[in-house]
């Protein structure tokens, strides 16, 4: 069952998330994909773009994507291929106190490496400051650039967007 908050406001709730979450053990091994696609829609570029078959939609294109976190190496290829911009890569091993979250960002201006931005949760609420550690915008991203932020440990569950600080 999808939460009311998701179906009426577009904001995934605590009850929606667990389905997409990798195990503690897998998280400790390095960057890994988080797929926040909770509704059956006819779509499968996540499956066709992953070189390691870590995401499977299967025969029925309306089925939900199933993720095998063990197969994923966090390469981020699928992140810019998902039309729903529903895929993120997180890494809880960045430092003692910080994690990394990589997200698609289709707006201008793009931030630059080293910039400090305001990190937002799924409802667009400002949660903390974050540092941009990587911006990838080559032909392979097809105009869906990837931005990687450092955020305080524990926040990787909630930070899904950011805005520039004027």
């Amino acid at each position, binding site marked *: 069952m999808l939460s009311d908050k998701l179906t009426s406001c577009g904001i995934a709730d605590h009850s929606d998330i667990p389905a997409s979450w990798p195990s503690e053990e897998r998280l400790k091994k390095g960057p890994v994909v988080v797929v926040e696609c909770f509704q059956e829609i006819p779509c499968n570029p996540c499956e066709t773009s992953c070189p390691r078959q870590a995401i499977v939609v299967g025969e029925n294109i309306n089925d939900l994507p199933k993720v095998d976190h063990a197969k994923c190496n966090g390469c981020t290829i699928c992140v810019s291929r998902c039309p729903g911009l529903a895929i993120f890569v997180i890494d809880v091993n960045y430092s003692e106190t910080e994690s990394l979250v990589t997200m698609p960002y*289709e*707006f201008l201006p793009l931030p630059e490496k080293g910039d400090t931005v305001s990190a937002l949760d799924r409802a667009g609420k400002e949660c903390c400051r974050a540092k941009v550690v990587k911006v990838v915008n080559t032909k392979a991203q097809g*105009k869906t650039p990837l931005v990687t932020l450092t955020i305080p440990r524990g926040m990787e569950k909630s930070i899904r967007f950011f805005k520039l600080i004027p």
Partner: protein
Amino acid sequence: MRIGKHPILDFKKGTKIEFFFEGQPVEGFLGEPIAAALHAAGIKVLRHSVKLDRPRGFFCAVGKCSSCLMEVDGVPNVFSCITPIRPGMQVRRQKGRGRIAVN
């Protein structure tokens, strides 16, 4: 109100030209419809309605709703949302059903 840089699109603009709105010069780009060029110049009111003299702008932008009828070079009832601008073109707001120009 033109979009400067766009994250996905590159806009290929035609040559810059000048036409006239209510006698005043307005700039636009070749290939643009009248209503679009006026909108870029901040002009949204394209005509006044037949019965109640209410202001009207465009609505569908594809020539299907008649909301955008203007007087162009003296000819009334021109669909300004799909008619491209030309250099020197004289465009006026249409009042009601439009008048026929008498020189």
